[in-house]
C-alpha cells in the first residue's frame, strides 16, 4: 500500500523518499509527522512529513541514518513497500503572519523544517533560514529552502560551506541586525537547548519541535513524555512543537539516551 515512488540521496547519510499514502497526503498539514515500520519485526519510528502531493497521493520523507530502523528505511528502493505507515500525527504548526521569523535547523532537523518554512512564507512572513551542519557534505535541502526563504544562512563547524560557526552564531547575527518576531528551531536536542537559551536572552518567542523517542505516536504509551513549564506533556499528541523557553531540555537529552546500549547492540543487523 505504501509504495516508494521515488528516492534521492541528499548525502551519504540522508535520503529522501516519496511514498504513496493518499489519505495522509490529503489530510496532513505542516508540522505533522507519521510513524513508519519496516519489516514484520520492525520498530515504529516517527518521521516528519517534509512535503505532500495530494493529487498524486504521495508524501515525502527525509531520513537520516542514525540506527537500525532509519538505516533499514534508507536502504529501501523505488518499488519497495513500507510495511506500515500511519498518520498524520501530532498537532500542526501554528501558522500566521508573525512578521520576521528565523527558522533554525540543524542536522536532519532541516527536513521537518522545510514544510514549516514553506507555510510561513506563504502566510506572508519574512523568513530567514539558518542551516547548520558539521561540514559542507552534511548541509541538506539548501536549494529547497532558498525557494521559500528571504535569506538562507549556512553555518558549518569547519567553515567548508557558508560561514564558520554554530547555528547560534547565525541566529545572533540576524538578531543583532533586525527585529525578529519569532524563532522556530528543529534539530538535535542539544542544539535546540542552546538556541532556546540564546533567544531567551533576547526575549524572542521560540518554538522547538521535539524529537523524543516514541512507540505508538497516538498518546497511548507515554514514551515521548517531557516536562514543559513544570508539567508532563506527551510530545506525540501535545506537540511536537512547544514553547522552547518552557521545555526542560536537560531532561529530554537524558531521556533520549534511554535505550542507547540496546540500540547500539542491535546495529549488527544493518552492518
Amino acid at each position, binding site marked *: 500500500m505504501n509504495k516508494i515512488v521515488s528516492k534521492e540521496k541528499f548525502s551519504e547519510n540522508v535520503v529522501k523518499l516519496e511514498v504513496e499514502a493518499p*489519505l*495522509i497526503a490529503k*489530510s496532513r498539514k505542516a508540522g505533522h509527522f507519521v510513524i513508519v*515500520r519496516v*519489516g514484520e*519485526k*520492525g*520498530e*515504529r519510528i516517527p518521521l516528519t512529513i517534509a512535503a505532500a502531493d495530494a493529487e498524486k497521493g504521495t508524501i515525502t520523507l527525509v531520513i537520516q541514518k542514525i540506527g*537500525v*530502523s532509519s538505516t*533499514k528505511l534508507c536502504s529501501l528502493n523505488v518499488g519497495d513497500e513500507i*510495511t*506500515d*505507515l*500511519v*498518520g*498524520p*500525527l501530532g498537532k500542526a504548526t501554528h501558522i500566521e503572519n508573525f512578521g520576521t521569523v528565523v527558522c533554525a535547523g540543524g542536522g536532519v532537523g532541516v527536513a521537518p523544517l522545510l514544510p514549516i518554512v514553506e507555510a510561513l512564507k506563504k502566510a506572508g512572513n519574512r523568513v530567514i533560514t539558518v542551516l547548520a551542519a558539521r561540514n559542507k557534505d552534511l548541509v541538506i535541502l539548501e536549494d529547497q529552502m532558498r525557494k521559500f526563504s528571504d535569506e538562507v544562512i549556512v553555518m558549518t563547524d569547519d567553515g567548508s560551506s557558508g560561514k564558520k560557526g554554530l547555528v547560534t552564531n547565525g541566529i545572533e547575527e540576524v538578531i543583532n541586525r533586525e527585529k525578529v518576531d519569532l524563532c522556530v528551531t528543529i534539530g538535535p536536542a542539544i542544539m535546540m537547548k542552546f538556541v532556546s537559551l540564546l533567544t531567551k536572552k533576547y526575549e524572542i518567542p521560540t518554538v522547538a519541535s521535539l524529537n523524543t523517542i516514541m*512507540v*505508538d505516536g*497516538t*498518546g*497511548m*504509551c*507515554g*514514551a515521548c*513524555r*517531557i*516536562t514543559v513549564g513544570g508539567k*508532563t506533556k506527551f510530545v506525540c499528541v501535545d506537540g511536537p512543537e512547544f514553547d522552547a523557553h518552557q521545555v526542560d531540555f536537560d*531532561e529530554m537529552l*537524558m*531521556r533520549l*539516551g*534511554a*535505550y542507547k546500549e*540496546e*540500540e547500539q547492540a*542491535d546495529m549488527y*543487523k544493518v552492518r
Partner: protein
Amino acid sequence: MAADRNVAWREDLRKTMSNKERTSIPRVQMNELNAGYRARVREEVNQGLTKEQALVEAKRCLDCPNPTCMQGCPVSINIPGFIKNIERGEILEAAKVLKETSALPAVCGRVCPQEKQCESQCFYKQKLKKEAVAIGYLERFAADYERDSGHVSVPEIKEKNGMKIAVVGSGPAGLSFAGDMAKKGYSVTVFEALHEIGGVLKYGIPEFRLPNRVVDVEIDNLSKMGVLFMKDCIVGKTISVKDLENEGFKGVFVASGAGLPRFMNISGENLIGIMSSNEYLTRVNLMDASNPESDTPIYKGHNVAVIGGGNTAMDSVRTALRLGADRAMIVYRRSEEEMPARLEEVKHAKEEGVEFLTLHNPIEYIGDEKGRVTKMRLQKMELGEPDASGRRSPIEIPGAIEEIDVDEVIVSVGVSPNPLIPNSVEGLEVTPKGTIVVNEGMQSSIPMLFAGGDIVRGGATVILAMGDGRSAAAAMDLYLKK
C-alpha cells in the same frame, strides 16, 4: 429459557444423578504449568481442562430452575444451557449456545473476572457455601474444543443489504459489533490505528494469559464473514468521521478504548526506566521487543517495581519475571483485599515469586547521573474508612517512609479514555471524564454515531465491551431500518 430447560434430553439428564451426588463432586482444578518453569517462559499458564475433567465438572451444575449464575454474567450467557450440553457430550452444541450470546467465548472464558461475575452468583456459592461451578473453565473448554475440532460453525449471514458501516477500533467491542452487523447483512469496515487487529487483547493482555492465536481465530472468522480491516488508519486523523459519511458509511461505531496511561506526577517520574504499563506491555506484546529479532528495544530490569493492583499491574509484573527480573514487586497502596485484579492473576503471580508490597505508595524516584532510576521512596499506609468506591481508603502513616532499590518501574495506576474521537467530532457529547455519552441503545448525541466499550465506560472489562458491541449492533440495525 424455561422452555429450553424442559426439553426432554435435559429432563432426562437431570435424572441421571441425584443432586446430592452432584454436589459432592469437588470442583475441578485447572491444569497449570509448573510455577518455577512458567515464570520464565511465555507459554500459556492455564492449559485448559481435558474432556474427562470437563464432563465431570459439568455434572456439578444442578441445572437450577432459577439459574442465578446468569444474573452475574453481564451478557446473560445461557450458562446451564451450555454446561448441560457438555455433560451429555455435545461439546459443539455447547459452543453454539455460547455463541448465541458471546462473540468471544474463548477469550471471556480466559479473562473474565468470574469470581466477581457468573461464579459469584452460582447456587453453590450463594446457598451451599461451596466452591462455584467452574463456569469460566467450562466456557473456555467448549470454545477451544470447537476451534481445535476444525468444525467452527460459520454464522449464517443475511443477504447483503448494501449499507456500509464503519467501526473505529478493533478491540472486543469493535470485533463483536462487526460480527453482529456482518451477520445482519451490512458491509462492515473496521479501522484500527495500530498495525495489529485486536486492541488490548493483542497489545495489552500477554501471551501467557491469552495467546494471540486464540484472538486470531476470531479475527479470521470475521474476515471470512466479509468484514474488512483497515490497519494503520486513525479515524479523526487519517480520515475524519465526516469523510466516512461522505464515502457513504451510514453508521459509525466508536470502540476506541481507554488507552491513555495515567501517571502519578511525583518527583522523578520521568527518569529513565520508569514507564507506563501501556508502554511496557506494548513493547513486549505488540512489538515483540524481548525477541532478539525485533528492532524495538526493551530494558530488562533486575529489580522491577510495578505500581498498582489491577490486571494490568499483574500482567506487567509477571512479564517482568519472564524477562528475567531477579526481584519483581507489586507496590499497591491498599491491602490485597481491595485489589481489583482477578483472583487467579494474584494467585499465579504469588506462585511465580512476585513480592507484594501492599499498603505502600511511591512518593519519589531517585536516579543516577545518567538519569536512570536507582531507588524509590515509599510511604507506608494503613486502611481507614471506606471511600466513595466502597473500598477502605489508604491513609499515610506519618514518618513511615522506606527506600528500596529499583532499576525499572512500571506505572499501572489506570487509564483514561482515548480523546481522539471526542476531540475530532464536533457536537459529540462527552462527560467531564472524557467518555462518550450514549443512551441505552449505545447511541451518542450524533444519531449515526454509536459507541461502546471502554470509551463509554472508562476502563472496564472484555465482556462488558463485547456486550456493548452487541447491543449497539442491535440498536443501530433498528435505527437504520426505520
